[in-house]
């Protein structure tokens, strides 16, 4: 090969390698409608990897609800929605790459908000999204300190943070034993996934143990948690009254099976949000009967909005789900719930800024002024599915309550009396302290309530 042809070949190779990076990605699902008036929402999803079975129903719920909105309600006040999926495999680098690639928006529509779906990805994107003025919406996970919107204007841990999860679990236990005063002297062991996610509840449980006088025992399970014989042998020794299970992935099913083997009553184990789905408890088999879980995403297909989605989307064969058995499962409903919250935030912002595709800044205003009261939830068909929410600059969580479900071997049944609330008055001061410490470390000036209103155009 002559030298010239080799050089040309190398140049062509280099050009072809860099060209795709400058081409915009062309893959996205599109609904029919006027091109300029559509709101674009990027979806960071994971259909591959260790957690794919947990993720797939969530995207099913999200996409089905978005399709329902577009086809039946004509979008949000006439503004239809388009979306694009980006595979993250629940890995940080891919999540960051997805965010960076999609944050510019598409077809004239900016990105109103971003749902990271993953604790490591959320942490990596916190500062980036604040710099880009795109709110991060994390329902049922995410940084607890972000509840303080004065320090975290663009991070929204809506619905149920991990601290609220711990507190609600304790409150449910209190209900079961006859009142908060009966908590004194109880032994409550927390079996947690040995990761930052699992350790997030250590501080609130410590605080609650001091307040109510129960003994708080923390037992770590190293990732991935395939073998928990040592941990449950220790539980057999300690004989706690209740076990709070904070697992993720295979850890939950293994925990339930091992607990049954060592003789711990499964109906005294309360799983957290990410240990409380069909995918988590089915692999345990028949011994999982009676297992409890606390979650802001109640399971079931009888809710008004789900019936509407079933009629308009699932029965017409337009569902994103490949396995229709997941319809109405905890994770499917979590996708519907978080999309309802995102859509209602956009609707709130549209009332102020106009019925057009909105930017991240405008949606941030919408999120901070989101009110989903009982009346609105009834209109949506989501009462009982979504808890009443009222967000503000000092409260990005808005709700902080969960329902307790019990597995009967085939499906989840709601066993709690409505929404079990967390002890927000007790936890909020500590959360504000931690947010203030973060602000000091980073040199952030917390917003005051007046400057926030003034800065919103």
């Amino acid at each position, binding site marked *: *090969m002559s030298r010239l042809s*080799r050089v040309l070949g190398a140049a062509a190779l280099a050009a072809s*390698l860099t060209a*795709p*990076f400058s*081409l915009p*990605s*062309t*893959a*996205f*699902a599109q609904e029919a409608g006027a091109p300029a008036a559509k709101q674009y929402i990027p979806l960071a*999803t994971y*259909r*591959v990897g260790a957690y*794919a079975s947990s993720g*797939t129903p969530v995207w099913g719920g999200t996409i089905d609800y978005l399709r329902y909105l577009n086809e039946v309600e004509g979008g949000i006040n006439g503004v239809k929605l388009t979306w694009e*999926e*980006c*595979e993250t*495999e629940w890995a*940080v*680098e*891919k999540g*960051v*790459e997805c965010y*960076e*690639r999609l*944050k*510019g928006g598409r077809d004239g529509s900016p990105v109103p908000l971003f749902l990271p779906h993953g604790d*490591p990805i959320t*942490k*990596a994107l*916190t*500062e*980036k999204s604040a*710099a*880009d003025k795109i709110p991060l919406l994390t329902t049922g996970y995410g940084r*607890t300190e972000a509840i303080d919107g004065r320090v975290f204007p663009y991070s929204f841990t809506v619905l149920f943070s991990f601290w609220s999860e711990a507190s609600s679990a304790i409150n449910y236990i209190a209900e079961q034993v006859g009142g908060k005063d009966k908590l004194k002297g109880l032994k409550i062991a927390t079996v947690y996934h*040995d*990761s*930052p*996610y699992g*350790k*997030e509840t*250590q*501080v609130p449980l410590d605080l609650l143990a001091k307040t109510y006088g129960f003994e708080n025992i923390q037992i770590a399970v190293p*990732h991935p948690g395939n073998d928990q014989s040592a941990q449950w042998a220790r539980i057999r020794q300690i004989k706690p009254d209740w076990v709070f299970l904070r697992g993720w992935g295979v850890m939950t099913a293994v925990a339930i099976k091992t607990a049954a083997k060592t003789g711990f009553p499964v109906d005294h184990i309360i799983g957290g949000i990410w240990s409380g789905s069909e995918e988590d408890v089915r692999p345990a088999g028949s011994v999982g009967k009676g297992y409890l879980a606390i979650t802001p995403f109640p399971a079931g297909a009888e809710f008004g909005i789900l019936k509407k989605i079933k009629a308009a989307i699932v029965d017409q064969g337009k569902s994103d789900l490949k396995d229709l058995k997941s319809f109405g499962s905890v994770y499917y409903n979590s996708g519907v719930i978080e999309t309802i919250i995102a859509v209602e935030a956009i609707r709130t912002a549209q009332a102020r800024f106009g019925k057009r595709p909105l930017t991240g800044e405008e949606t941030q205003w919408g999120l901070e002024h989101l009110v989903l009261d009982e009346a609105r939830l009834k209109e949506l068909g989501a009462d009982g599915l979504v808890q009443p929410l009222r967000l503000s600059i000092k409260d990005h969580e808005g709700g902080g309550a969960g329902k307790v479900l019990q597995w009967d071997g085939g499906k989840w049944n709601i066993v709690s009396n409505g929404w079990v609330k967390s002890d927000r008055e007790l936890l909020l001061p500590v959360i504000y302290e*931690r947010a203030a410490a973060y602000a000091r*470390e*980073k*040199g952030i000036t917390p917003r005051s309530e007046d400057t926030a209103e003034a800065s919103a155009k």
Partner: protein
Amino acid sequence: MPPALAAALAPVRRPVLPALPVRAAGLALLLAVAFVAIPLTATDYWYNAILIPFLIMALAGLGLNLTMGYAGQASLGTGAFMAVGAYATYNLLLRLPELPLPVSLAGGGLIAGAVGLVVGLPSLRIKGFYLIAPTLAAQFLIEWVFNQVGWFSNYASSSAISAPRLVFLGYDLSSPAGRYALTLTSVSVVTVLAWRLVGSQTGRNWRAVRDGETAAAVIGVPVARAKLSAFFVGAAVSGVAGALWAFAYLGTVDARSFDLDRSFQAMFIIIIGGLSSLSGSFIGAAFIVLTPILLTHLSNALLGGSLDGGQISNLQRILFGALIIGFLIKEPNGLAALLGRLRHPAR
């Protein structure tokens, strides 16, 4: 030594390098692109998703290459050394804020080097491939320590750390361009230092120990000092890479960001790129870090929405694995040697 081991650690065929003026011109062009052309044209996406992770993993690979490629000491502890560098830099930035940023970064690297020195002590008794075992132990132990001991992460609720402020000479480096400048400068400085080291007596000692430890000891090469210095320098370089990964790329990390997968990634980078080759670390990093992104873009451009994201992702993995197998069959000594051969196809 069993033949398989001997083959695995046999001296590598050095890539045939072009004459010096051509190399100097090529290097100058590369530096001009990196320091001048890119800041003028790059977007946020290029900085945050492509250039910064590529440079940082190249540096981590460089560190491992010094220990494993040049000195022949196998190590699966790269992730742990990166973690030490990240947490050490964090604590220096937090507790000694008067120190300028480069000093904290270098300090973090040196502390990682010291840890690497301790981890490298078994190499004085264990040779070859079996050395992987104590480094693996170090990988798990160090990750566990950072998870458990709250002091290292300033008692954050999830042992996550994030840089207090990235400021140097009054410039705020937290923008993508600023972080790119920080990463590029650090990587360039460390690469130059590594290049000088490799060409010095220390580098020659390393290669002597790798190629024939007994012979080296016989002719008077200080074997123990060479091995320990290889671990020290390799871990120090990886430590700087870890600090940059934590603060210039992700912003917030916890101990699990530097787990065994990270160590494997570094090892794959240098195996694919070329052991005992500085440019090999960069080429390997470009392949391992950037090819998945390239495949994503290509599949979006060519396949559009016809396949769902999960299926595309699986296809990409198959393709990536096939490429690795293909390249290693064609040139077992790595991509650097392959590119060297392209210049002189007769060899």
